[in-house]
């Protein structure tokens, strides 16, 4: 059985330790805004990455509520970050996994995101937005590509 995996990577112009730091601690700055990219209405939440091996990624809203996207399962600064990844439409038992690697390359770091486990979602799951197979993988990959493109530009500017 395929786990329906999406792999998107990008080169950023800084060393792996700093790329890891920006990816996590400054995620609200580079992660794109609006309903297409943010997690829950009213689409103006703030993304917060609680650091460390027991950390979490969550979105905080002006009314004081939060949505937990996932919990960290591996935290190796400058090398690798793994966390669960859930959307608001997921049932309690449903989850996917995001595995981010930071590898040194000439002039910076290749940041590679492997997002896996989508095949566990039933065919009519709202998170699929009616897309299946390659079309669905391409849709998810495009969202990551847009956000990683923003990360690349943010690092190039700062």
């Amino acid at each position, binding site marked *: 059985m395929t786990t329906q995996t999406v*792999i*998107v990577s990008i080169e950023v112009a800084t060393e792996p330790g700093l790329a890891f730091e920006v990816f996590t601690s400054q995620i609200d700055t580079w992660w794109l805004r609006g309903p297409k990219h943010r997690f829950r209405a009213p689409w103006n939440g703030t993304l917060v990455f609680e650091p460390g091996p027991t950390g979490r990624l969550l979105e905080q809203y002006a009314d004081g509520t939060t949505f937990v996207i996932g919990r960290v399962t591996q935290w190796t600064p400058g090398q690798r970050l793994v966390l669960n990844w859930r959307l608001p439409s997921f049932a309690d038992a449903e989850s996917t996994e995001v595995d981010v690697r930071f590898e040194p390359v000439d*002039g910076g770091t290749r940041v590679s995101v492997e997002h896996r486990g989508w095949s566990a979602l039933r065919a009519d799951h709202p998170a699929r937005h009616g897309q299946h197979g390659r079309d669905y993988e*391409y849709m998810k990959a495009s969202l990551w*590509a847009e956000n990683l493109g923003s990360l690349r530009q943010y690092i190039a500017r700062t």
Partner: protein
Amino acid sequence: MNQTITPYITVKGAAKAIEFYKKAFGAIESAARYTEPNGRVGHAEIEIGGARLMLSDEHPEIEVLSPQSLGGTPAMFHLSVPDAAATVARAAAEGATVQRAVQDQPYGERSGTIKDPFGHRWMIATHVEDVSKAELQKRVGDAYKIT
């Protein structure tokens, strides 16, 4: 909206090709790379001298094939560089085949042609002088009529 043309090439071994274009031509990988779980590159983008070039691995099931599978290529990239001989030497050291050695051309370029390790052809050129139509006609004689 402005129109823009961007070459989108197919290579057998896209990840290796990107490394070659970096080393030989100073390319930078400028956007996100999509990789399939089996390792095939579905899409990547590089920039050479500010010009974009998109590339992917072969996808035979949808007839996306590279020069190596097609037995040649009908297209060529013209790459303008400060020192054509140096760029051709660097490309050759990285595995390219020199098809036409760098030499001065009658139209004011010093250029040569290579085939890269993935079968794509490049004309590597340096502008060395401005040549008037009259001078060019004199140089090429009866071979071409310059209009």
